[in-house]
């Protein structure tokens, strides 16, 4: 989708026209920030991760051969930078998996989501995404929002295809659970 448009810009940057990199930032900054937010879960760190990732991308531009999409390559840098960031933190005791409820309430979420306004749906989805486990949020965003295939996500994360599928499955279940909880809260306030 973006490969053809990115390549002249990347060539210009490689040739020494660094101002062309600003256009790359303009194009990907929001997605980069969103993906970083999905993993680190707070705005300050997400900004730091996104900035570091763009700078790393600039520094290692020579290693980008153009075999894959630039976006996939950039998402991989974001993923690695964000994972390094959360690993450098002190261990957090909260374990989302231990809180996970097995009951699957997709019908409830689906029927109620349609009752809400578009703006509310967006808000609830963002809140639900923020509750997902770090890597799961990243994978869910690439899969459902960016329409990436499992292969593309494998390339962007460096994880095996089976691992991506497991995380996607877990992320999907967790997302539905969080949507249900948030919807209950929302509907209670409306009623």
């Amino acid at each position, binding site marked *: 989708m973006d490969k053809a448009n990115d390549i002249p810009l990347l060539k210009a940057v490689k040739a*020494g026209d660094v101002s062309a990199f600003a256009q790359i930032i303009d194009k990907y900054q*929001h997605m980069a920030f969103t993906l970083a937010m999905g993993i680190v879960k707070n705005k300050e760190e997400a900004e730091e991760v996104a900035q570091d990732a763009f700078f790393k991308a600039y520094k290692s531009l020579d290693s980008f051969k153009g075999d894959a999409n630039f976006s996939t390559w950039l998402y991989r840098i974001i993923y690695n930078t964000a994972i390094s960031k959360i690993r450098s933190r002190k261990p957090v005791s909260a374990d989302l998996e231990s809180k996970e409820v097995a009951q699957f309430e997709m019908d409830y979420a689906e029927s109620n989501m349609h009752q809400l306004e578009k703006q509310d749906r967006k808000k609830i989805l963002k809140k639900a995404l923020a509750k997902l486990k770090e890597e799961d949020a990243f994978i869910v965003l690439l899969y459902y*929002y960016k329409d990436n295939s499992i292969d593309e996500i494998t390339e962007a994360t460096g994880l095996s295809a089976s691992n991506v599928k497991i995380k996607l499955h877990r992320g999907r279940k967790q997302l539905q659970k969080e949507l249900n909880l948030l919807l209950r809260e929302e509907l209670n306030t409306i009623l």
Partner: protein
Amino acid sequence: MMKAKNNIPEEDQFLKDLFTDFEPEAAPQNMRQDIMNRVFQDWTANPVAYRPMINKENRLWILLGISAILALTFLTDASVLLEYWRNLNIKLDLSNLKGLGQSFSQYYAIMQQMPAIVYFIATGILVLLGFDKLLNRLANI
């Protein structure tokens, strides 16, 4: 309840539909500027530099070598070299080269039919390219 489209599992379709409304978080306004500041800082610290064609350390030796070759060229009588070659009396088997000669003569005949302007333009382009390359390299020695 929403129906599944194109054999996509129903729960997947529901989430896909949900994400159609999704918009990425807006990145902080200063982010672009901050990244570009870092990029420009790095760029000024490590400007793009051409790798010189001639190694600076070896430049003296290369110049001396070229001077020596030029001196030899001017001082040597070519007829002496030709005489020496003849005295060596080396017999080359040229029978295998006949086919090659024929190919060259055909090629030469084709080339002869081309208008002179083609040669002028081709030579001009090559000279300009060579000249440009040479100036680029010399500018960084």
